């Protein structure tokens, strides 16, 4: 499915990614964990075409996506649900969803069908479809951001910190949604600070530290506390 090989990305002289390789398999939730500043978001941005890679490659189903601009990446099936949700606050809920379908060359009827499908999945959004997105609660905004991502009909959904800034109960709800989406067949690459929650939904995880993948595995096969410790604090000093 999504395959990242030796990805190097830098901001000026600072190398943020130093050869990241990972695979996200079809129909699975792949989770990228790591401490602050390890390169999680940079990986997402590079895959999404927001930052251009210096070297390495990103392929989706064998199709080369490296260094394509975001406009093209979205239309070829990679949608990003950004950190902090970034919904359009003065646009209503339905307009936010329609904006998510911008990159698709779809007919109005097709887009309206997809809006209806998102509303079926998130009835709370339908109740508020005429409301300005900025007036929604944090959890509802996250649902909207996810729905907006789905509107692009992605082959893979990139989710950057979906739980950030949300109350614990709402976090539970959002992870429930992530699991449901996956059960419906959506492939997800998840970046998450909340390692414990992430390990509970992930099929596979990668640990990124200092711009490099240092560890990967299948949750359950490893000591959860050890993984979580490293995800928050980096490598344990022996």
């Amino acid at each position, binding site marked *: 499915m999504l395959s990242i090989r030796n990805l190097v990305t830098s901001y000026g002289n600072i190398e943020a990614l130093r050869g990241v390789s990972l695979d996200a398999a079809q129909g699975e939730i792949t989770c990228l964990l790591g401490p602050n500043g390890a390169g999680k978001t940079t990986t997402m941005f590079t895959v*999404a075409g927001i930052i251009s890679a210096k070297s390495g490659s990103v392929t989706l189903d064998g199709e080369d996506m490296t260094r394509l601009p975001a*406009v093209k990446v979205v239309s070829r099936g990679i949608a990003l649900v950004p950190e902090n949700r970034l919904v359009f606050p*003065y646009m209503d809920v339905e307009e936010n969803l329609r904006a998510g379908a911008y990159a698709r060359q779809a007919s109005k009827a097709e887009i309206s069908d997809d809006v209806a499908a998102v509303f079926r999945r998130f009835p709370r959004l339908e109740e508020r479809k005429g409301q300005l997105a900025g007036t929604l609660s944090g959890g509802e905004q996250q649902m909207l951001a996810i729905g907006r991502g789905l509107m692009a009909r992605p082959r893979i959904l990139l989710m950057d910190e979906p739980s950030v800034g949300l109350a614990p109960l709402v976090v539970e709800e959002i992870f429930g949604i992530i699991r449901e989406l996956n059960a419906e067949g959506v492939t997800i690459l998840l970046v998450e600070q909340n390692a414990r929650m992430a390990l509970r939904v992930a099929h596979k995880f990668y640990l990124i530290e200092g711009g490099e993948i240092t560890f990967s595995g299948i949750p359950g096969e490893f000591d959860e506390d050890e993984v979580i410790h490293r995800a928050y604090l980096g490598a344990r000093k022996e």
Partner: protein
Amino acid sequence: MIDFVQNTVDGIMFGSSYALLAIGFTIVFGVMRRLNLAFGATIMLGAYAGTWLHVHYQVNVLVIALTTLACTVLAGIYVERLCFRAVRRDAALASMVSSFVIWMQLEEVAVHLLPERTYPFPSLFVAGSFEIGPFLFRAEQITMLLLAVVMVGALHLLLHRTRYGLALRAMSENPQAAGYMGIHTEWVMLCAFALVSLVGGVAGYAILATDEQITPYFGLWATFKGLIAMMLGGMGSLPGAIVGGLVLGMVEAHSQWYLGNEYKDLSAYVLLFAMLVLRPGGFMGQRILSREELAFRRV
């Protein structure tokens, strides 16, 4: 009383063109959070191109109108390329300063094209006046008002009913997130400049055709009127631009009648001063500010 109503009507007629000028400023500001000072000069250059054609070749009024519009749009795209695309997104001040420089440049080009102080500008397709009851209406002004209504209506539909409008509004709210949606932000911006230049070109043409003359001060004049109307209404607000333009037109018409011609501009500045002191966000700006706070609190 009759005077008062007559002045109000005149004010609304002329204010409608101020509203169009303000829309040009406010859309660029709303989308980019940057001020395009060259907007008035853009319109002036377009109008000078039209006038040049009028002076040197006796062509149809329609051709002159189209030339004015086309050249205004081209000049607008030129400004976008030089002062906005070429300057980093977060360098708002650099854009403003360079747009000021381009203002000077465009004026120079216009004055080289037609070096004398005053040139005749062809009148609108219809001229003349008629009376309804005690009130006098000038046909050019009614045409101006109708043009403004049509432009505002078309803009509203464009912003709220089309894919492009959705992209433009998304960009004005969060350019970063708009990019994530696959919105081609540079293209949207270029189209926005072409669009507001078209609106400005229509406003400029209507104003000049009513005055039936053009001077090198037109760029400065249009910039002042547009900026004042935008600030009265609230920067970045489309309804604000319309309200601001109409209020400015009415205040000018009244003060011209009751206080005299020399107080016309002064009263506009006094109004702006009062607005900035009492309600710094403008008529519509305040509401947006509180909504912003609301949104911020809930996030």
